[in-house]
Each structure stands twice: as C-alpha cells, then as structure tokens.
C-alpha cells in the first residue's frame, strides 16, 4: 500500500493535517473540532442527509456536508458561523415539527438521543413551524425490539446498518418526501420478516427512540448506567460485550466497539438471548427429598455429594462438562480428573472431529472481509455464529465476493450465494459450475463447520481445494474451522475428550456417581437428554450432581443441583475460533448462592 498523501487545511482558523481522501469531518474530529452530526456514524458509509454537519468552504457560496466532502489541500473551512447556525437550527426545528419528538413521552429515553442532544447544543427553546405530527404506526411485533415511526428522523442509520453491518438489507426507506417511512422487507412487520436476524444493530445505531429494545424501555438513560465490558460465551466467536447495568440489573447489552473480534456488532444471541429472554435460574443448591427437589444449603448439598462420592469407587465416577466453561475451569477439570474414572465434554454431532485436531485461524473475521470467494461447508453461521454470517454477507454484498454454500440444511446465506447445494447430493457436472464460479479467484476462504467432517464433507472439501489449486493466480485457501460450541477447541486442547454420543459413554462402564457441569448453557444442559437411552441410564446412577445456572429437565433428573454462575457473573478467559484469549469480567455479583464453575468443582472434588 502506498501511504496516502498528506494534506493540510485550515478549519476555523486552526491549521489541521490529514490524509488525502479523508473527509472534512474526519480531519476536524481528529483535530478535536466538533461538528454536529445526526446521520453520521463512523462505521457506516457517509450519507450526507441530515444536513447538520454542513460547513462553509472558502470560495464556495453553497454549504457542504462535511461528512461526505473530501478535504482539499489548502482549503479554508468554517464550521461555526451565524449562517450555519441558522441553517442547522432551522433543520432541527423542521425535524421537530415533522413528527412527535416530545421527550417526556418517549418510550425509550436513551438519554443520549442524538436529536435531543443537538437541540440542546443549538439552544432550541421553541419551534417556529406548526407541528405536522401525522399519526404513524408502531410495530412491536418483533421479539426483542420495536419501531415507533413517530420518533423517526429518517437518518437511515438503521437502513445502512442493516445493509452494511448485518448485510441483510431488511430495512429500507419507502415512499417519497414527507411520506417517507422506514420499511421492513416488502412492507412487513418485524414479527413477519423472513430476512431480519434480530441482531439489534439497528436499535443500537438509532439516534432517537424510534427503534427501541423492548427489555430496555423505560429503564432510563444509558448514560446513567455503569458500563462493563466482557465477552460473549454463546458461541466460539467470542464477541466483546458492553453491558449497561443499573442497580444490579442489566439495562442493555451492546457490542463492544473496541473489541478486535466483533468491532461492536453482535448477533441475536449475545445481544438479547442472554438477558432479554426469561429463563428460570437455579439460585440455591437443591436436594432431592422424597422424589422432589428442595432448597438446601451448600453444606447440606455438599454432604450429600460427599456421601455419594464416597460410596463409589474412582472407576464408578465420571465427570461430564459442557463445552462452554472457561479456560480456568478447564484447568480445574484437569486437576480433578484423576479423581474420576473419565472426563468428557458433550458436543454436537461431528464436532468431535473438529476437536480432535483443534486449529485456530488468526484474524479469521478480518480475513473473511478481504476474501474474494467464501465457501461455507457444513456450517450454519446464520444460526450458530451470527457475526460470522454478517461478515460473509457484507463481503458478498459490499465487496462482491463469491459465495458458495454446501450444507445439509437451508440457511439465509443461500439467497446471497452464487451456488448453494446440498452436501449429500452433488452431481458430477455440478463441479464444472463450481469451477466456473471460482475461476480467477485470488483470496479464497473456506469456512467449515462440524458437518464438513463427515466423509462426504471431506470429499467435497478436497475437491474444492483441488479446484482452487488449479486456479493459476490462486493462493492456498484460508481454512477457517468453525465449531458450534463456545469453547470446545480450548477444552479439547487440555485433553478433555469430546463426546458426541453420551449414552455409550455412560454405558461403557457402570457409574455410581456422575457430576455434570452444565454451567450456563441456556438449555441447562438438557441437550444430553435428547439421546434416547440417557434418561434411563441416569436413573441407574446412584448420585447425579448437576451444576447448572438454569433449571431444566436435566436438573429435574438430578439428585443434587448446584447453582452455577451465568455469563455475566463469570470471570476468567475463553479462547475463540481465532485463537484469541478473551477475558470475562463479572458484570453483576453472583445471584443467590451461585458460584463459579471452577470453584464448585474444587469444592466438590476437594
């Protein structure tokens, strides 16, 4: 890369330096000169629509939007003048007259409302124009968020976010002029939308209360909240979270813009499911008495566990963990493993093969963005790793990358793909088509999930790599392994065996004492009960201990239930699929008598 040419210009009389190609706004902000904006967001394509960032350029009679106007070497810019103030203020007044922007009645007072802020900055105490206030509809059919068009200023930040960050283009503007309305798909409701992924990025980027998180409504301004950054443990991507808390309650969860992984973007799991979904917590130890689980103290519970543990030999004891515990807990597991016959982690089908040779791809997300062809095999990023799916979509839509999807289930990526095919039924001549699409590709990336590890999956992979190798200009494809479980690769790295089928593992040798670490799995670890024999096998075990954060059928089947910490109470690290060590910070104190996974294990196996 050639370093961009340096330019210098005067902004409000201050001499400023910048790079050629930078906009006036970028250089002004870098030089700590504040220019008001409403529709501008650093990570989005400049839009130039709100007319707040207008500046005067010497030699031009017209005002220019600083967010889109490239800075010219030697130019003289004025950002503050009476004319600009009048125009900006009139623009604000027109916005306030257009729709209902009465702050006290805003259902979602973020407190950092961009419109309100600008009104304060411009000393706006009255509006010259009559209020138009058409009665516009609200749409609250979405699972986690809604839109109140009456609050909308049509800055299109949501539209651009949906298009450029999440890459689904669910949102757009409909109609002309004063009838403009943000529209979902082909004028559907959020609840009916087939393209919306509920990533909530639009809400996070809305400068007013038009798009609002239902769970955060009426919780007061975010500015008054404490902010803690931590890491999402719902999938192996490991997105940085910025959690807003107030009085020991979560008010909202946004992506951490400083996270090198997700750079502020989240999927529905990290953004909402962990806190906006009602889930039944286990808050005290529970003991089965007369066939029913009853509250107990830690001491009572531990006494029962010890009794159960004592009555079993080492060979009759087993430890089964969920692949979402922290690296520190994993270490504890290895230290206690000699006290049990066997330690296993239950993983989804075919993931054991990924765990067999754990491989990380450094900066995979960044590289996905640079790829000119992306091949997805046996993975379902849309449902399993939303942020990866967003990166794939944006690479395809913004930068024209090719996309080939080989899978066993349909996904929303299909509609962006050049080729999408069922992995089990690939005909011969099909490969000519694939070769044609991949012709001339220079920076290919292959994202493979657990289902790529089947024999047919491996054949397809080999075939693809052969085609890519034939490309004269082609580099070796970038291989990105993408498991489903959050920390399974790191756990496998410590030597913990990955178990796909729990029943045979349990049945291999008779067990009298089984400790299951379900941790904060949203299903409370109930996934293992899906195998037919598992419930029966559990019944045959004398003492089943489940440490889980959430109540489930599994805890129902346990003799002792121990309250585990959830994501926002945990500390430690996890390793994401790029091989990054990412820290968890306790956002909230432990609820009830919950304890961290490692601490519980240490106590139990002390």
């Amino acid at each position: 890369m050639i370093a961009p040419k340096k330019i210098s210009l005067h902004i409000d009389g201050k001499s400023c330096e910048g790079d050629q190609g930078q906009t006036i706004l970028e250089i002004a902000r870098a030089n700590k000169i504040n220019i008001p904006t409403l529709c501008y967001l650093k990570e989005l394509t400049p839009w130039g629509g709100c007319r707040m960032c207008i500046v005067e350029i010497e030699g031009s009679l017209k005002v220019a939007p600083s967010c889109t106007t490239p800075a010219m070497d030697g130019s003289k810019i004025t950002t503050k003048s009476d004319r600009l103030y009048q125009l900006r203020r009139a623009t604000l007044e027109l916005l306030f007259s257009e729709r209902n922007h009465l702050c006290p009645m805003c259902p979602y007072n973020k407190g950092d409302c961009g419109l309100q802020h600008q009104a304060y900055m411009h000393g706006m105490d009255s509006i010259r124009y009559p209020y138009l206030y058409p009665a516009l509809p609200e749409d609250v059919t979405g699972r986690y968020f809604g839109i109140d068009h009456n609050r909308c200023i049509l800055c299109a930040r949501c539209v651009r976010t949906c298009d450029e960050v999440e890459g689904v283009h669910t949102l757009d503007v409909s109609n002309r002029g004063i009838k403009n309305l943000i529209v979902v798909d082909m004028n559907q409701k959020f609840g009916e939308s087939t393209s919306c992924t509920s990533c909530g990025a639009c809400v996070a980027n809305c400068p007013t209360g038009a798009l609002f998180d239902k769970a955060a409504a009426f919780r007061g301004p975010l500015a008054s909240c404490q902010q803690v950054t931590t890491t999402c443990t719902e999938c192996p991507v490991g997105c940085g979270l910025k959690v807003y808390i107030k009085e020991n309650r979560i008010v909202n969860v946004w992506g951490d813009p400083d996270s090198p992984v997700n750079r502020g973007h989240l999927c529905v799991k990290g953004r909402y499911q962990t806190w906006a979904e009602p889930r039944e917590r286990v808050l005290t130890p529970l003991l089965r008495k007369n066939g029913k689980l009853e509250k107990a103290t830690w001491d009572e519970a531990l006494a029962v566990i010890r009794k159960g543990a004592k009555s079993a030999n080492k060979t009759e004891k087993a430890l089964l963990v969920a692949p979402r515990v922290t690296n520190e807990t994993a270490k504890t597991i290895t230290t206690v493993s000699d006290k049990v016959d066997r330690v296993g982690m239950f993983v989804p089908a075919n993931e054991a093969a990924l765990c067999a040779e754990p491989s990380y791809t450094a900066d995979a997300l960044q590289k996905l963005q640079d790829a000119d062809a992306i091949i997805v095999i046996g993975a379902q990023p849309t449902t399993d790793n939303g942020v990866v799916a967003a990166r794939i979509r944006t690479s395809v839509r913004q930068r024209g990358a090719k996309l080939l999807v080989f899978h066993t289930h349909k996904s929303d990526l299909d509609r962006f793909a050049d080729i999408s095919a069922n992995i089990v039924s690939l005909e011969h001549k099909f490969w000519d088509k694939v070769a044609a699409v991949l012709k001339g590709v220079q920076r290919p990336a292959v994202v493979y999930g657990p289902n790529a590890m089947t024999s047919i999956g491996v054949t397809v992979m080999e075939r693809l790599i052969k085609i890519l190798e034939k490309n004269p200009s082609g580099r070796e494809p970038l291989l990105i392994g993408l498991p489903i479980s959050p920390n399974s690769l790191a756990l496998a790295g410590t030597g913990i065996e990955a178990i796909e089928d729990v029943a045979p593992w349990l049945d291999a040798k008779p067990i009298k004492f089984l400790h299951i670490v379900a941790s904060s799995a949203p299903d409370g670890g109930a996934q293992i009960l899906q195998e037919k024999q598992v419930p029966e096998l559990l019944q045959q075990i004398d003492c089943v201990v489940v440490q889980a954060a959430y109540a489930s059928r599994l805890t129902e089947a346990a003799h002792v239930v121990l309250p585990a910490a959830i994501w926002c109470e945990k500390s430690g690290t996890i390793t994401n699929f790029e091989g990054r060590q990412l820290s968890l910070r306790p956002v909230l104190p432990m609820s009830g008598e919950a304890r961290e996974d490692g601490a519980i294990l240490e106590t139990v196996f002390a």
Partner: protein
Amino acid sequence: MIRSHVLVCGGVGCISSGCHAVQEALASELKKRGLDSEVQMIETSCMGPCDLGPVILIHPDGTFYQRVTAPDVAALVEEHFVKGRPYKKLLPKGKVGENVVTTARDFAFMAKQTKIILDNCGLIDAENIDEYIARDGYAALGKVLTGMTPDQVIAEIKASGLRGRGGAGFPTGVKWDLMRRAPGTPKYIICNADEGDPGAFMNRAVLEGDPHRVVEGMAIGGYAMGANRGFIYIRAEYPLAIERLKIAIDQAYKSGLLGNNLFEKGFNFDIELRIGAGAFVCGEETALMRSIEGKRGQPQPRPPFPAQRGLWGKPSNINNVETWATVPVIIRNGAGWYNNIGTEKSKGTKVFALAGKIKNTGLVEVPFGTTLRDIIFEIGGGIPDGKQFKAVQTGGPSGGVIPGQHLDTPVEYEALQKLGSIMGSGGMVVMDEDSCMVGVARFFLEFCCDESCGKCPPCRVGTKQMLNLLDKICSGEGTLTDLNQLEQLCTIVRDASLCGLGQAAPNPVLTTLRYFRHEYEQHVREHRCVAGECTALQLSPCENTCPLHMNIPGFLQLLKEGRLDDAFEQVVMDNPLPSTTGRVCQHPCETRCRRAGMDASVNMRETHRYIGDVAYQSHVAKKVLKRILKRKKPATGKKVAVIGAGPTGLGAAFYLALLGHKVTVYESAPDAGDMFFHYALPQYRLPKRVVDREFAFIRSVGVQFKFNAVPGKTLKLDKLARDNDVVFLAIGTWEEIALGIPGEDAEGLYASLEFLTAVACGKKLRLGEKITVIGGGNPAIDAARRAMRMGADVTIVYRGSREDMPAIPDETEQALEEGAHLITMAAPVRVLVGKDGRVTGLEVAKIVPGKFDSRGRRTPVITKETRIIPCGTVIKAIGEKLDSRITKALGLETTQWKTIKVDPWTLQTSNPKVYAGGGYASGSANVAAAMGSGKKAAKMIDEALTGLDRFEELWPKFEYDWTIPPSGQGGARNPARLLPVEERKGTWIDVSPTFTEWQAKAECLRCLRCDIKTGTDGKPR
C-alpha cells in the same frame, strides 16, 4: 414515379388527436383516385405544433395543413392533388394582418425557428436507420473513429461552446475532459432521458423522432472519454420513445454501428436501456446512477462527482438527450459553425416546450439569444381568447416565473438566472391574467414536495411546511407572519437542501414573491384572489370578478324564489346604485361566468337592473328601506366629509351613514345633480329620473348633500379637514389629456366631458355637420351617439383594432348601427384649422401593429401613410387626468403617474385624516370599480374611526335554497332589450327597456350556482 410526399405527423400529440385515422383515410382516398403510385405517405415524428394537430406537411411544395380530420381528407386530396391548389380550409393563420399562409416556411411558428436538434424530427421515419443515414447520420461517428483522436474530439466539443442541456449549462467539453482524465476503469457514459418537468417534452420528441442521433452522440462520447458501455436512463412513461430507441439500438447493432470493433478501428461500444419508474428526483445525476444500480433513487452529495466516482463507483459521465443529440452535428459541421449560433456565452440552439395559456402549444427550437417575447408571441402565437399575458414559467418546477416587464430578455443561461429563474430542461409554461400567482407557486411547490425523495429534512419537511403555508394563504387564512415565514423557509430550503431538487424548489415561490408580491398580500390582507383561482377566497367567479363583490348567485336565487324584496335588499346592500349600474356597468362578472362554457353567460347586469327598476317602481324599495334603517348603527358622533357625489363618493357615503357616522357629500355640480351621473352619462343610457330615485334612496339613509361646492372656490379644503374626523376624496378624473398634435387649440375641438356636460346642461355648442370623435372608450361612444342624436355625421377614430376598444362592445355595436363610421388603426397627427380658426378636418396616420408589450398587446407603430377626415368638430375622448390643484391644497403626496399616493390596503393618504378612492387614487376606472373603491373606503374608514370590524353586520342573512340546480335549465341567454335602431336613433331616453319578469326569472334559472361548493362526496359543504 413519386411526385409528392405527404408527411403525416405521428408524434404523441397528433396520435392523440387522431392522426392514425387521417392516415387511413388518406391512404384509401389516394388509392381510390389512383394516386397511390404518385403520392407517397410517410409517418414522421413530432413536427412541433402539437396544438394544431393532426398536422400534415406536403413536399416538395411545403404546404402545411393543420387540424386535419378524416372527413376532411377527401376534399383535401381533391383540391391539393387533383386540382393542384391548396385546400384553404386547413391552412394555418399567419401573421396579424395577413390571412393565410400556404407553406410551412411562411408560417410564423415554423419560420422563426432554427432546427438543429429537431432537424430530422418530423421529416424522417424514426424507425428506419437508412433515412437517418441518408441525412448524414453516423457520418460524424465515422469521422471521429477514422480520423480523430479522443483529445481532438474533446477539443472540438470544447471549441463549439456546447453547454449541458440538462439545465445547469456546464460546458460539455470540460466535463468530457474531466471524465477522460479520471483514473479508474471501466468508465460509463449515461444519457439522461428522465424528463420529468411538468409541461416539458423536448427529450421525448428527439427520442421518438430521431433516436439514432442520440445513439451516435453517445458512441462519439464513449470514444472520446474512453468508455465502452453506455446507458440510456429513460422514464417508463415514454413507451413510444422506449420502443423507437430499442429499434434504433437494434438497427445500429445490426449495421455494425454499435458493438465490437466499430469501423474496424478496434473501438467497442454497447448501449443498454434502463427504464425509470417515474421519480422526478431520478433526473438528478447521482440519484439516477443509484437507480441504474438497482437501488433507491436518492441523490448523494457531490463531490465526489460522477467523473470521479459514479456508476458502481467508477468514473461516469451523464449528459442530457439534447446534449448527446447535438454532438454529431457539431462534429459533422465543425465547432466554428456551431459557435456562430447563439450568444456569447450560450451557443447553439435550444428546444423549448411551449405549454399553458398559449395559442401554439408545442415544441420549438430557437437559437440562444431569442427573446422570450419572440418565442411566446411570434412563434407561440400569443395568448388565446384575447386575454392578457401575465408571466412565463421557465425551467419547470424548479424554475421561476418571469413577468411581462422582462419579456425582452434574451433566452440564455445567465440572463434567466439573473431573473431568478433557470433554463432548466426547456419547459415554458405561459400564464395569463386568470392565473393566480400564489396558486402557480403552490402548484409547482406541491410537485416538488411530492417528488422530494425525503433524504434531507430541509427538502422533505421544509417543502411540506411551505406548501402548508401556501395552502393557508390560498384558503384565505394566511397572515403576514405566514408570508414572512414562507420567505424564511425559501432561504432555508434553498441553502440547506442536499440536491438540486430541494435547492431549487423554492424558486417558483421566490420569483412570484419577487414579481407578484401584491398578489400574496391581497390574499393575506383582503382574502381576495383577483385571478379567481383560489376558490376558497370567493363566493363564486362572478362575485370575485365584480369590483363590488355583489352576491350575484344570492340575489338570482332570491328572485328565482319570488322574493323580490329580499333580492332587492341583497342587491342594494351590495350596490347602492342598482338601477344605475344595471345600465352602465361593464359587467366584468360575465367574463368568468361558468355558464359561458355551456352556452352563454348569465345576463347578470340586466337581471340586477330589473330588480332595481321593479323595486323602485313599486312599494318594495320603501319597504326595504325600512328594513335597512332598522339595522342602521347608532350614531357614533364622528363626522365624515365625502368630496364628490360620483360612484366612489356615493359608494362610501351610503355605508358610512348606515354605520352611524355623520356623512356630508360635497359636490361641485349645481342643483342636486352629480357631474358624472347627471351630465357625463347620456340620458338614453341612464335617464335622469333613475339617478334621482337612487340619490333619494341614499339620502334616506342619512347622507347629506351640499352642491355647488367647488374645491378651492366654494369649498375650503383645509377647513373641511379641520371640521371633520375624516375627509374622503372621491373626485373623478376630469381634466382631459392633451393630444399633443398641431391645431389642438382650434375652435371646435372639445374634450368629451366638456361636450357631454354641455349637451346635458342644454348649453348651445356650435357643431359642424361632420364630427370626428377620437378614442375607443365609453366616453367616445357616448359622445358619438349624442352627436348623432344632434344630427351630425359621426366618425370615430381609434388607434387600435376593433377588438382592442375598451368600450362596452354592445355600445360600440349600437353606435355603428345608429350610423357612426369607425376608422381603426389610425392615429391623429394634425387638426386642420380654417382661416377663421375653426376646425376643418383631422389628419390621421395609418397604424400598423408593432412589437408586443408586457401584457401581450402589440404596440402601435405610426406610419407615414395619412388621410384627411373633413369635419367641423373634433371631440377627443382619449382619457382624463387629475386636477393637481386639489392635492396641492391638501398637501398630499402623489405618485409618478400623478395620482394620489394611498396605502393600497387602507386607502389612507399621506395625511392620516384623508382617504382617497376611485379614479383619483387609482387613475381612471369604470363605474363599478369606482364604487368598489368607495365601498372599501367605507369599511376602512369605519375600522379606523371605531376600531371595530362591523362592516358585515349591516347585511341581512337570507336563507335560501342551497341545492345545485339541474344543469342547463333556463334556456338560451336573454340579451338586453333594445329598441329597434330606427326608434333608437332619435330618442334621448332609455334605449334599452328593462327585462320583462319572464326574462329576469329565466336568467335566474340559468345560474349554475357556483356559490355552492361541494365536497368530495358531491354534497354541498
């Protein structure tokens, strides 16, 4: 052998007026007569004069036929092709003074044009590439590819001075050069054919008439700028243009003029069509490119410019259809040739679409520098129906309105900008006196508001707020604050909007405010729309046009219901001199009567005269007087002096007295008479007894009269001002304007008023046997008719044409019937004087029509050709002016036209105690206007004296039927009754008897009741 070609216009205008039926008829008629082997018929594209369609042009003789219908065809073929002479019935009218023209070359519409872009339109078959090639088509592309470098092509375009025809006028060569130098590949070129201005259809005509020209231009541009792919973005509303473009592109590919390796020079060029969905904003280049990309068509700020980052982020060049169409001609004929046409800064020709209130609606192409006047009046034929020109809107909805005083502006980019308008794509919408300028601004703004994409708040919300303000003003609810806010918003929307749409949207408002501010103020202050377009501000068109704002539908309905007393009360309250005005009013009410659209306007004047006459002849007047006096306000103790008992003074005095003020009217005429009513108006038009009755009525409401009060002599104005709370000056214009020709002071030359009053007073005048009257107004006709009754042989000399005469046409007609001679288009140049110092004749010069003035009338040009009219007496009736002694006595400021300076809204003079109305304040006016001014003065004086708005309280509230009458009842119009000419000639009294009851009732039935306004459900609101 083909001896003649018949070109039948197949433009969209002619298609809709039925040219296909004409073609069929022509084909079968030619075949029937066995002429089909000699005469070839060709369907061409638009020839331009769309309003005259279907049109036919016959070569080689160039005969042009207009408004041809299928039934005409047989006669046309018989005359033209069999008998070999033009078929006169369908020939167009030529210049004024000449009757018909046969060839297109002589037809002003065609003759004044210079066709470069439209060269082939209307001549060739647009769907045949061979015809284009035969007209040197694709020669320019060949020239460029085989002998010119891209730089040479760009240099040629630069040298030609061609500027972008899309509206902004950016130099095309410079734009091409920027594009050529822009880094990045591939490059794209785009033809903008998203013509969206209301009333503009230039691009459509070119695309329909000569599509290959655009294709060729684009290929040349592609070669010059290094682009191999071009797009034509055309709106879906142009199906024929799309069809013909498709054919043209297809033919070009087949002929090797598009595609790969053109002229075997290794240059590849492809053109694709993109159909727009009809969004006006997609004519903006950045929005257009987004639309081509398949995205929402919204503009983006520039820079970056398309040449830097355009279609799909690549360097792109956009030019308008007309620009592309001009390129091949420039290359073919050379930059030097093109550079010679037009003005210094605007080169070449421009196509304009003439629309609105203009005779020759259609397309015209003229060199830059042609004046608006030439385009509108010479080529466009002026305003139809004898209406006055008011303004022309150029540049479409984002352009501005240009008023009459700027008609001599040469059409070029900079000149139009200076007037606050723009060239735009070339739409010209002509407006006449019936166009409300607030309504015009509202119309164009509504268009922009609807078409705003909504991206930026100033345009999205600003235009809507402006539209709401204009709605408010048009519905009479606007205030002066609203007007201020409207102006403020104009600036904000103009300066803060993102793209050209928003930046230019306020232009129609800004220019109408600039040139027609008084109309806005009239809407706001008086809740009046003089043009009559704002229906919320009027009861009905007749009420709106009546200077007295009489409730005409109301009294017609009351009379229809047999309620003569109520009808009379309504009439006399609206107009205290019903019998008088019923005889002498110019009845402007009838000019806008909607019944005229069915058969003829309602005879409102005669009906209202009937009500007055019948009421006075019966007990009704007295009965009504009692009712009116019951509503008279208690005495206020305020004293008002009204000077002059003419229409203005009486109009004011009547209401002021009813409002409780002590009113005294001072009149210079002797003995209970008024100069105007009793002396100036002849008895046979207005019998004295009629006026006396009405004077008595006014006296009965409490008005006092003092006669023989001559200002400056028997009336001391300064004392009057001291003794009264308000002085209202209602003195007419009595001093005759001088002719300014030799012999004017000869004996036997009289001013019309001097003559009329002398006759009325029975003064003996020494008159010749032959009398010449100079002038065309009512005083001239009155003088002529009186002179004839005194036995003279009368000749009327007027400088304009008969249609231009300001006198009531019926009166002129009657004068001619009674034996007067009329010489029009003649100007007096000398009064011949005999040895005794008496008049012996008048020498007049022939006048020919000259240029059009700002109202669309031709200014007279006096020629050297003269004639002598022998006569013993000359009466001049060319207008009156003010007596300046009065203004001096009261120390009042005057205007440049020597009228009293008054506040137009309050009629107050520079002396706050003194008000002035009628001719004295506004210059000469007719009776109704003078009375209207008095009525207004009464309202204003009362408001000033009492601080209350109680004028309306004087009126009774009548309940009457409020259902819309069945359409068309009442039969034909009843003309005013008139004695037969033989009886009339000799008589000095009422030549026109009052309507019969039956006639009056019939006229009431004829009223369509425009005062009943229906909602969308059809029910009265």
